[in-house]
């Protein structure tokens, strides 16, 4: 395997990519691996999206129409698992792979072979997870939060493969995070100080720290499940002196930082895009860094707000309520800063900016419904209803997913060398924006009226809102085919982008040619004035 094709004979240590499939299998290049992550994430996004549409098709009308209840709950479970671990997280890791080395002026990720390992574990892990559909007992059917004893005593035998799948994803995340953290701490161009780094790099530094802290806890909790299932231990069995609520504590100690893992890199993306299209520097750079750190710290001490109805002591409920509300402060700082950046800016609304502005507004709606859920007595009413579904879909879809789409439009010209079709991009945005709101806004109402989640049937009074919601879901889902088309068209096209691409974009990546050369910054950049915008 020494078929090295040298494109650049001037500097013989610069190799171009190999030809053919093996380029992708054997690559150690951060840009190739970033591309792999992003395509993998997109495939998983469509897979999880199909599951979501099965759910919405069943809920289009009351009564059982299309799928059996057993299959419905497998759909909700796998939709959640695939979207969280297969779509959102790998997309952010892919963006980090592409962007962090260019943004800090590094030649590549710190440990390039391990980087390839982190990626290639994922297709194996998700193949195993998806294969459970065809195994005896069917796919996991206990929700993406896999509460014991549903996931232990009453689980199908495929739970074993689910557990090992989670172990593999965890190993991938841990190695990926080590790589990102080491790249940021050790590979910055000489003279680039931490407080000069772009916010995307900062948010990923903190995200990687969170991942390293909580993915092992997730591995711990699934290992406890494995032992309870196969070795008769009593972690989650009160009959043996354990406690099913212990599962929820350990799971949410992972789970709450996990939800910030899925949003902090989004903050970084939006903090890069808004200044570019407002043609102003980011308002309050330092406060953004401190707010991100504060959110990360708070994420470790609020986990039991997911468990108010599980039977925890009242003092615990009060503490977790107040601690949770504190998160609104640093998050408010961020939203304030984004708005202040736009204030009196010379704004234009290209597709990345549209997605970013929508992010700020819709993520804030999701944050405010989160505040409502933090109130203990109110949560007794909201718990496990569609209000919760609406809340976390508002922060994840027009939050995390919109930020990923914004990032793709923003950096696609840098990656491919070509401009995407602006008219189609805007069409994609408006279809997605309308679709998302039609899907999830009515779920606030059905939830407040008491419609429970994860149930394939519902009472007649919820029929209208569910029908609207399903229509929105199909609109949003099918709009993503347009997204795929736009990306493929941009790769094929020949509408050359300039190096800076956007008139007011700042950052080291924009000093590179478009498309970015296979190896960039093999020697560190000297002009660091451009480092952050």
């Amino acid at each position, binding site marked *: 395997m020494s078929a090295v094709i040298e494109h650049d004979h001037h500097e013989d240590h610069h190799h171009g990519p190999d030809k053919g499939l093996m380029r992708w299998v054997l690559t150690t290049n951060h840009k190739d691996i970033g591309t792999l992550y992003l395509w993998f994430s997109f495939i998983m996004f469509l897979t999880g999206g199909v599951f979501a549409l099965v759910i919405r098709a069943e809920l289009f009308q009351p009564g059982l129409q299309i799928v059996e209840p057993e299959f419905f709950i497998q759909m909700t479970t796998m939709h959640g698992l695939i979207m969280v671990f297969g779509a959102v997280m790998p997309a952010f890791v892919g963006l980090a792979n592409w962007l962090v080395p260019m943004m800090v002026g590094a030649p590549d990720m710190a440990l390039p072979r391990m980087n390839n390992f982190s990626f290639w574990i994922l297709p194996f892990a998700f193949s195993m997870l998806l294969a459970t559909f065809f195994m005896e007992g069917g796919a996991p059917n206990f929700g993406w939060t896999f509460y014991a004893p549903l996931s232990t005593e009453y689980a199908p035998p495929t739970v074993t493969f689910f557990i090992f799948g989670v172990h593999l994803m965890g190993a991938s995340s841990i190695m990926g995070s080590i790589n990102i953290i080491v790249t940021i701490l050790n590979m910055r161009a000489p003279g680039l100080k931490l407080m000069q780094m772009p916010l995307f790099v900062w948010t990923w530094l903190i995200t990687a720290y969170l991942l390293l802290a909580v993915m*092992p806890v997730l591995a711990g909790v699934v290992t406890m499940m494995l032992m309870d299932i196969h070795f008769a231990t009593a972690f989650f069995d009160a009959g043996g002196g354990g406690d099913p609520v212990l599962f929820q504590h350990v799971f949410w100690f992972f789970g709450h930082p996990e939800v910030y893992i899925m949003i902090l890199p989004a903050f970084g993306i939006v903090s890069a895009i808004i200044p570019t299209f407002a043609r102003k520097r980011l308002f309050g750079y330092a406060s953004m860094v401190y707010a991100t750190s504060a959110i990360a710290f708070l994420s470790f001490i609020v986990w039991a707000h997911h468990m108010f109805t599980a039977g925890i002591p009242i003092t615990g409920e009060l503490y977790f309520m107040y601690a949770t509300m504190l998160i609104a402060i640093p998050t408010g700082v961020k939203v304030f800063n984004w708005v202040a950046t736009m204030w009196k800016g010379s704004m234009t609304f290209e597709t990345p900016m549209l997605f970013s502005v929508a992010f700020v507004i819709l993520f804030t709606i999701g944050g405010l419904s989160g505040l409502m859920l933090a109130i203990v007595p109110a949560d007794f009413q909201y718990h496990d209803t569609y209000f919760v579904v609406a809340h976390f879909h508002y922060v994840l879809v027009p939050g995390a997913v919109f930020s990923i789409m914004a990032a793709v439009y923003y950096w696609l010209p840098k990656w491919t060398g070509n401009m995407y079709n602006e008219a189609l991009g805007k069409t994609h945005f408006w279809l997605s924006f309308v679709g998302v709101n039609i899907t999830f806004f009515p779920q606030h109402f059905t939830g407040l009226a008491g419609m429970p989640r994860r149930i394939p049937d519902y009472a007649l009074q919820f029929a209208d809102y569910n029908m609207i919601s399903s229509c929105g879901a199909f609109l949003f889902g099918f709009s993503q085919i347009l997204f795929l088309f736009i990306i493929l068209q941009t790769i094929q096209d020949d509408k050359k982008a300039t190096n800076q691409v956007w008139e007011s974009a700042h950052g080291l990546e924009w000093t590179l040619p478009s498309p970015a050369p296979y190896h960039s910054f093999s020697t560190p950049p000297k002009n660091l004035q451009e480092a952050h915008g």
Partner: protein
Amino acid sequence: MSEQSYEAYYVPHNSKLPIFASLGIFLTVFGIGNILNDMSAGTEHSAGMWVLLVGGLVLGFTLFYWFGTVIEENHQKLYSDQMNRSYVWAMGWFIFSEVMFFMAFFGALFYVRFWVVGWLGGEGDRGPSELLWPGFTPEWPMMSNPETDKFVGPAEVIPSLQLPLLNTALLITSSFTVTIAHHAIKEGNRKKLINWLAATIALGLIFLVVQGYEYYHAYADLGLTLASGIYGTTFFMLTGFHGAHVTLGTFMLIVMLGRALKGHFEADDCFGFEAASWYWHFVDVVWVGLFIFVYLLGGGPTGF
């Protein structure tokens, strides 16, 4: 900064190692999954064992070549100081993630001891437990579980100041011996390095034998098993995962001894050894935590 003063960062062009490692790790867990499912379902015949065997071999050989490649590249002076700092940071963060893994199990222990035991005995507003299991006495170690037929409690638990105290002494001593071996590298004294590293390995192996005997004693004589309720659960899972880490740490040290015998390690170039020794110190610190919280304050007899 001129280009001459910048030492190039080594980026291998491409590598077959990771894809084989991914395949190996996948086959390993897929094989184990099949074996466990057959075991719990009571079925005998399955391909799980073969899948595990193939996966384990692929993973094992890949890791062997991977580490060998890294050592070889280092000997060829391909690594800059910056590259070596990457390895240092990476090992540090890896150990941090391992600490968090143990935190999950320590957290489970504390939660059960401080809250669950009382609740099961009817304390607080969780009264219904008393209706479910009226005869249950809340105590730690939990010698009799709420559901006595499903979970048969242990007859006795391991006393803290006998074998566990010996094991504590062994591991703390080994932390010192591995540090002396490290100093020997810095002094360039290979004989001293080999002797003290071998002593560390011996202490690790004795620890494992003692713990193996302790497990045998628990299963054969005391009725303390994984299935004997929450005490056995937390006891075996915490000490067991620690034991697995000692095994891995000892294996790492054995590899380092082999390398020392081959003439590897210089005063300014011994990261492999240092990584193994950090891992060893980490394993020691976890043991001290175990000794305090599982044994010493574990509520069992001291046996002294």
